């Protein structure tokens, strides 16, 4: 493998890796406030991308993307209001099974709305063939859009959770819901907000990656698996860990793909099993004993 190929595979690994990181952060946000793993997380990306593709036929691209993010955010909020909130004293297993059901229903509705066609957003700048040459490797302009948007999402979320009142209230809920409630925080609203936030960033990620990987109605589940693997790898609830782990998984996949593309899909599940056996609290956790073990 020469240098240009290394750059090529490396950049494509980082590109998809940054999307995995965004999916993982989506998992983290909902997990932190509710303890639920939202199996419909991958569907948010596809709903976002599909809506934007349809809207882009009528309005300029930036408006279409904004519209898609809005629609998906509302969908996330509705999901929580209609299906999660009414269930009282539910076991986490029950809530997770609900999100599994939701992911299937969303996927099937998408199948009826957008059929099985593989679609793609237009390239944000330039066309599919316009590239920048880095160290002899031709790099698509969309790669920079993906990396840039991911960086903006991560930075904005960090600032939001650290400096805004709402963000801090959400963190308080994640830490101790009862104590947060005693401080006058409307914890239920925070849970709804966490679903909306998670759906919104998912939709945005789905839009920027669509020109690179294309979009089909049933691509949500594989994305969810990879995002989940990344979330575990980075330590559940640790957003910076998710970014590092996302890039790591992306690069690992690119490395395997450069040898044989047949095993690309198996990479994440093997990583997931290994990490669950050896370091269930994630690569970057300080303490060895995991809080995830039940016994």
């Amino acid at each position: 493998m020469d240098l240009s190929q290394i750059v090529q595979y490396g950049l494509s690994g980082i590109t998809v890796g940054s999307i995995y990181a965004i999916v993982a952060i989506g998992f983290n946000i909902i997990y932190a406030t509710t303890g639920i793993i939202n199996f419909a997380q991958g569907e948010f990306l596809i709903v976002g991308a599909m809506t934007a593709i349809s809207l882009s036929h009528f309005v300029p691209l930036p408006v279409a993307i904004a519209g898609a993010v809005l629609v998906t955010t509302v969908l996330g909020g509705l999901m929580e209001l209609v299906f999660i909130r009414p269930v009282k004293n539910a076991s986490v297993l029950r809530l997770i099974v609900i999100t599994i059901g939701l992911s299937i229903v969303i996927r099937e509705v998408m199948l009826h709305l957008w059929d099985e066609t593989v679609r793609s957003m237009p390239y944000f700048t330039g066309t599919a063939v316009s590239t920048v040459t880095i160290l002899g490797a031709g790099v698509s302009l969309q790669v920079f859009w993906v990396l840039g948007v991911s960086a903006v999402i991560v930075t904005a979320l960090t600032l939001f959770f650290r400096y805004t009142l709402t963000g801090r209230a959400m963190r308080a809920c994640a830490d101790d819901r009862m104590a947060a409630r005693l401080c006058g925080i409307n914890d239920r609203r925070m849970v709804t907000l966490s679903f909306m936030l998670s759906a919104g960033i998912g939709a945005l990620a789905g839009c920027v990656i669509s020109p690179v990987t294309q979009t089909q109605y049933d691509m949500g589940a594989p994305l969810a698996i990879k995002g989940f693997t990344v979330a575990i790898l980075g330590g559940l609830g640790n957003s910076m860990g998710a970014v590092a782990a996302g890039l790591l998984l992306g690069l690992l996949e690119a490395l395997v793909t450069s040898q044989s593309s047949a095993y690309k899909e198996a990479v994440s599940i093997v990583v997931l099993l290994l990490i669950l056996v050896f370091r269930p609290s994630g690569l970057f956790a300080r303490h060895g004993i995991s809080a995830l073990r039940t016994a």
Partner: protein
Amino acid sequence: MRLRMYYPVLATAVLIVLLHLVLAQTETTYYMTQITMSAYYALVVIGLCLLMGYAGQASIGHAGFFAIGGYTAAVLTTYNLNPVKDTPLVARLQSLGLTMHWQDIYGADILSFTPWAAFGAALLLTGVIALVIGASVIQLKGHYLAMATLGFGLIVYRIALGTPVLGRADGVSNVPPFHLFSDLQVNGRAAFRVQNYYIAWVVVLAAMVLALNLVHSRVGRALRSIHENEEAAHSLGVNTYRYKLAVFLLSAIFAAIGGVLLTHYNGSIGPAEAHVIKSVRYVAIVAVGGMANLWGAMVMGIFLNFLSLRGVFGSFDETIFGGILILMMLFAPQGLLRVPRLRALTGLRARRKHA
């Protein structure tokens, strides 16, 4: 007391014969084909019910185990060993009686593994895979098994779609019938319809007896204690890890048996059997039957699959199963087939305890 457990089994056996008579009277014996197929799907559901209802773990990858069973049986019984029949390995297999000669529909002579050998291989393979997945994630909280099995199911689907020997999108067809013993065979042809109706039911009832025995035994009590409160069970010396792993293994084996038998019955298997959506369907059926209700799971497993195979749900098939899953979890987490009186009683007792 112990014998009473089997009364429903006897009652079901009587109902099965009655159903046969009704179908014969109304000349609708063609329904038997879908009932037979549903029965094999119900095997998956019964195993999954043990896992979800009694061990409190969800799997969204059981279609993967079903497919591994089915594909192993299909490939081993159709892969022609004739070109390599003189190699020492194949000669050895032949002398061990693991192979058979048969003619496919075009009349070509085929030397392949016998269905029994393929059946053994399918169970072994499924067992090993289930053990690897289970051993790594089952000691963690529920959603890890769910996610790991979801990933596993996706991989099985991709492998089935991408591997030439598995027929890619077409799957494997021309799978020979499974001669069980003497004249009994798992065969989808109309002439064998009645026979197969009973074979399928015997398999399902055997699985039910096994499962009922399990939940009413020491193991079952241990499992229920795990479901109620895992830490308490653990502190009382229940080896929660080993029990959960054993149930996961058993449920995977049940799924694989269903896969093997249905593949021989249909004469083919395709990648659709491995799709995640099938796994979710099994979970939905367990939920409708009532998580910890084996009879409910079995009845619903046959009833809902039957409706689906008859095409009652049309193109909204999967949407309906997803919707059922959500509705059940929202409004009736105990399932539809719970005796309401019993629930009211336990509710009353619980309230009295709190008072």
